[in-house]
């Protein structure tokens, strides 16, 4: 597959995530949109990993090299971070819900100007 297909796909998913952040008011949905953005990045990274694998092996004729593994590991780390973030993020949302009984991001509006 040409790499551009993947890039466009990932970019589209990313932008859908952005739109989600922009048009929804529920903190949880916004957070989910952000997760969607992260996943699109993951997809792109894996695609790039395979692209560089191809490029690396094309340049170095001979034994295949491990070009591209680092991107897949990066994806792994992104997942790790996402997991940590989710735990903290949901804790924060829950804390807020306890105080105001809502997950609407516009409900709390004391800090402005």
């Amino acid at each position, binding site marked *: 597959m040409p790499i551009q297909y993947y890039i466009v796909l990932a970019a589209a998913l990313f932008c859908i995530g952005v739109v989600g952040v922009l048009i929804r008011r529920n903190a949880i949905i916004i957070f989910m949109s952000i997760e969607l953005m992260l996943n699109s*990045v993951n997809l792109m990274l894996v695609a790039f990993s395979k692209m560089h694998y191809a490029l690396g092996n094309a340049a170095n004729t001979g034994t295949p090299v491990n070009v591209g593994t680092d991107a897949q590991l990066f994806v792994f780390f992104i997942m790790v971070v996402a997991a940590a973030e989710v735990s903290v993020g949901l804790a924060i949302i829950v804390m807020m819900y306890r105080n105001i009984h809502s997950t609407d991001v516009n409900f709390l509006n004391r800090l402005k100007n």
Partner: protein
Amino acid sequence: MNAIIFSAGWGIIMMFCSFLVRNKSSFRHIAVVGLLVLLVVNILDSNGVAVFHIDSKNMLAYTRFGLLFNSIAIASTLIYVLLSGKDIARIGSYAAEYFILIFFVLCGVAILSSYNNLLMLFLGIEILSIPLYILTGSDKRNLKSNEASLKYFLMGSFSTALMVMGIALMYGGTGTFSLDVVRTETGLYKGVSFLEIIGLLFLMVSMCFKVSAAPFHFWTPDVYDGAPGVITSFMATIVKVAGFIAFLKLCYGRMTTTSTAIDWQLLFAVIIIATLLFGNITAIFQQSVKRMLAYSSIAQAGFMLFALFSLNDFASKGLLMYSAAYSLATIGLFAVLVKMKDVTFEGYNGLAKTQPVLAATNAIFLFSLAGIPLTAGFLAKYYMLASVVETGNYIWLVVVAVLFAAISTYYYFRVIQAMYFKTGEPQTENITGSFKFGLIALAAIIIIIGVLPQYLFNWLYF
């Protein structure tokens, strides 16, 4: 490496302390000891003494610059804990946890000051941010704190997404996460990659968010305002300048080689002007000193961005200088601020009468922020302006910057006017003698740096 391990390690030690030790105030002392140890090992590190020999596989690269910065960050934190330690312990029902989180943040700072791989940048930023989301919301019953925490978290995650997008694109262009890409004509990755530039743009946006450069600064005033004062102090100083160091390393690592650095100057110029504009102009109208300081930190970021704009010898030295000057002054201001019952400008009226020491040191901190000579802030601004002048382009940018610096005196001097020229009955918490002494020492440090800056650099190197 020492600093990373020790800060993480001391965090873990304090986790155990949190249920072994009952006395709340002893956490503060443990933290101080930890910071001292951290400072010592970091300075040892900068002299080539590593406690642990770990091969980071080129993930981390130790430079004089990074270590020096790390020392400044640790020293600032030390001063911060010494001045505001009691107030940290008073935020909520936990005491040790806040210190633990601060140590973890420092671990992130240490990573950011020495990373050599975009993965480490990513991890460092996250290690820095996640404890801060929590610290921001640590005043749990306070709706402002809740709101700040939520906003910070949502926008922070969004910026993380942008950052990984940028990293992914950069990887697509070069096939490596390492900062020092070897671009040979015959090698695997030839010349400048277009994808990498797009990626860098995303990464830049995300870093701008972290250092609260306009137009990605919107979170800053709300979060700084909502977070407990002591936490704001920490966020606005150590964390923020850590972001700058990371940004600077990134610029040095990738921007100077992706294409000529001049290509980025226009973009930085736009960002600098926007930052100075939003920071300074909006600060003028504020009624609360705390929120004013939030905007002021944006304005100061505008000045620090000059280092990234010019990327020369002056820039890196200047950024160190600026970090020290800005952090120390802001820590001092917040230390006084959290002692005030009323943090609006009116609350400061007549402070010079009732608390002359607080007022005088506060004035020096404000002078430093405004960039008045004899204070560290002046030299910091000086280096920044000099770095741009040295590049020879964009002199008009410097002119714009100093005009905004002049505007900045408006809000800084409002505090001075309130303290010295107006009358009122300011209410403060108990002010101990040692606190006053600490403030005086801090002010003295600021002035010494301002007059004899070489001592900062020499002393930290021994």
